[in-house]
């Protein structure tokens, strides 16, 4: 579904991504693990076209998307849920969803507000509430729902558990498993290994802009020295 090869990016003169390679198969959840500043968010932004890559290829659903505009990439069926949530605080829940709305994608059940409210029940109770008057957890749900309205085939989910209460993170994990069951592919970035292992099939570890390790979750759980070295848990 998504193949990234040799992806590099600079910020000013600092090399922030160096030869990053990863892939996500259809219906698969892959987690990108690494500490803050390791390059997780930048990888996602580079895939989405929000950070210009200096080298490398990004292929999505068979098409090369490297160097394209973010809106073109989104229209191909790649959804992006940013780390800082970035909901439109002046718009109501329904209006936020409207901004994300795009035509249905062949082979996937189209998302409607009603289906999303079934997935995130707390949102259904506040359809007309402005985004600015929602709690952090509710905003996180809304930002995912908003991206789903575009009927993506794959979503980039940047640190969805950051700053959320454990009970809310558990609900988030359920929602992600439900999305996977729908056939959606997900590239997740995380620091919370407990959460990541609940929802992911495979893991890739990034540090200082380079991929250090890749394997299945089971392999990661068995590889104490890898976790020790890169994740320090």
């Amino acid at each position, binding site marked *: 579904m998504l193949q990234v090869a040799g992806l590099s990016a600079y910020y000013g*003169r600092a090399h922030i991504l160096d030869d990053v390679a990863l892939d996500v198969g259809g219906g698969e959840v892959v987690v990108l693990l690494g500490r803050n500043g390791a390059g997780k968010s930048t990888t996602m932004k580079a895939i*989405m076209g*929000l950070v210009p890559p200096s080298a490398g290829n990004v292929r999505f659903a068979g098409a090369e998307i490297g160097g394209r*505009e*973010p*809106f073109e990439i*989104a*229209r191909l069926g790649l959804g*992006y849920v*940013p780390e*800082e949530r*970035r909901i*439109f*605080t*002046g*718009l109501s829940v329904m*209006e*936020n969803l*409207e*901004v*994300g709305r*795009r035509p249905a994608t062949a082979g996937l059940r189209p998302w409607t507000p009603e289906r999303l409210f079934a997935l995130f029940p707390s949102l259904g109770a506040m359809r007309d509430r402005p985004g600015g008057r929602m709690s952090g957890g509710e905003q996180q749900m809304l930002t995912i729902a*908003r*991206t789903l309205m*575009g009927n993506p085939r794959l979503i980039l989910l940047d640190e969805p558990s950051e700053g959320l209460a454990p009970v809310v993170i558990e609900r988030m994990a359920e929602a992600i498993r439900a999305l996977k069951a729908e056939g959606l592919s997900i590239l997740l970035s995380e620091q919370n290994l407990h959460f990541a292992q609940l929802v992911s099939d495979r893991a890739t570890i990034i540090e200082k802009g380079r991929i250090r390790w890749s394997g299945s979750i089971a392999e990661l759980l068995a590889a104490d020295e890898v976790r020790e070295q890169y994740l320090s848990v």
Partner: protein
Amino acid sequence: MENLVLQALSGLASASSLFLVASGLTVIFGVSRVVNFAHGSFYMLGAYLAYTLVTQLPRGHLGFWGGVVGAALLVGLIGLAVEVLLLRRIYRAPELFQLLATFGVVLIVQELTQMVWGAQDLLGPRAPGLRGSTEILGLRFPLYELFLIGVGPVVLGLLLLLFHRTRWGTLVRAATQDREMVGALGVNQRMLFTSIFFLGSLLAGLGGALQLPRESVNLHMDLSIITEAFVVVVVGGLGSLTGAALAALLIGEMHAFGILIAPKITLVLVFLVMALVLVVRPHGLLGKPEAAARGGQGSAEPMIGPAPGPLRWLALTALGLAVVVPPFLGDYALSVLTELATAVLFAASLHLIMGPGGMASFGHAAYFGLGAYGAALAAQWLGAPMLVGLALAPLAAGVFGLVFGYFCVRLSGVYAAMLTLAFAQIAWSVAFQWVEVTGGDNGILGVWPDAWAAPKLVFYYLALALCLGATLLLRRVVHAPFGYALRAQRDSALRAEAIGINAFRIRWLGFALAAAAAGIAGGLFAYGKGSVFPTFMGIPRSVDALLMVLLGGVQTLSGPIIGALAFTGLQEQLVRLTDLWRLILGAVIVALVLFFPQGLAGAARARWEARHGDA
């Protein structure tokens, strides 16, 4: 009583026209965050194009209304072209840069309009079917005014529907807050921005075209409407349509009744109201506080470090030349050099609040002018000798800096810039309208140096010593704790407050210090020219100061000096060499913003650092 009703009605008609222009401005600002100075030029173009179309098309309803609508559409397309060719490239640039770029467009449009339509006023035909007047309470009232009263609310209603009931409107409101995110959700935000510029410019063009039957079309329409439109937009709250409508109503009625009640202070009145509103409601009547920039990491502005070696040598050489060469120069060259010295200090004083202070001032000329008037009034009414006048200049400017700054530094961003503009306009209006004391438009003449300083050469050395001394003092301040505190509150207001820094007091004192320094420059300028005029405090001079600072580069200490020399030199040469100086200056400004967003000194430093490879 009947008179008052008619006065109120004619206020409504003005409010309606004002709203058309202001709504376009506020809509464009809301989405793109660009304060579009060229909006007034679009208004003027609307009037000129409507004049041409209406007089060329067959007479009658179709010809007139077709001409008005056609002019509005054409102006919309011109706005679209400006967005695509210029503004699209500078959305990420700082606000003031965008403002400057659009000011460059103002100059270009002025020159081109004069080339196409000539300098004389043009009178258009009256609207068919609305030529006569009707009787209201026994008094006659023009039908066309009545028609205009209806246009405003209709346009407001349509715009509100458009923004709140259509998908396009929802997307626009989302983009207002976070354009990048809207793009990541699959919306082509470039098209969105271009369409909003089309709409906003169209509204300006329509506003201008509808003036055709009311007043003559002339080359001053652009700047006179843009200041009023700014006032309306700021009073209403940036980006708020309903706010703009309310403010237009307020300003329109105030114009209508101001003439009856206080004809002597009509010019001041509008700006007083704006200042008052902003003091009570810092974000305008219906505006919302601007969301803090995402990330909140403090700015990653480059640090202020010691000047690199080559620059130091360059500066010393320039200084050496400035001291050694003048005895061999003629009077004209000496007065140009004197002017350059004052320009350097003027720019350096503005730089203190813009660079380290992080505040935008759009009315810095007020303090330059107050210094000049302080010295001139002392000479005129008290017969004060020159040195007393020169001592009074920074005092006057500094005291007013304290008073005006007390209000200005509480605001931030565009609101602060607009409040500084309001105070500068108030100062200008007083100088212009208080004829008994200031001589009004004729200014104060005969402000000459004392006998010992009368030779041009002596006065030049005096100006050089004072301006250079004050500029170096300002540099010293930037490296001292006070300058660091200024930068601290700019970098992170939250952190500054959390370590006991009273940001308000620091900003306030910084503002007053800059005002006093500008006052020195103004005082010297007055004695150098022998006279003072209200234009010393006008908008163009404030823009000059901004240009000098931005031309040099905000984030370098040498920037304002280089900028002042480059700008004053360029303008001097242009005015001497060509009639088309506005066109060329406008083009230079636009090119500068596009190609040297860090300013000349900033660009030089970036190249120097790249070559010497330090991090």
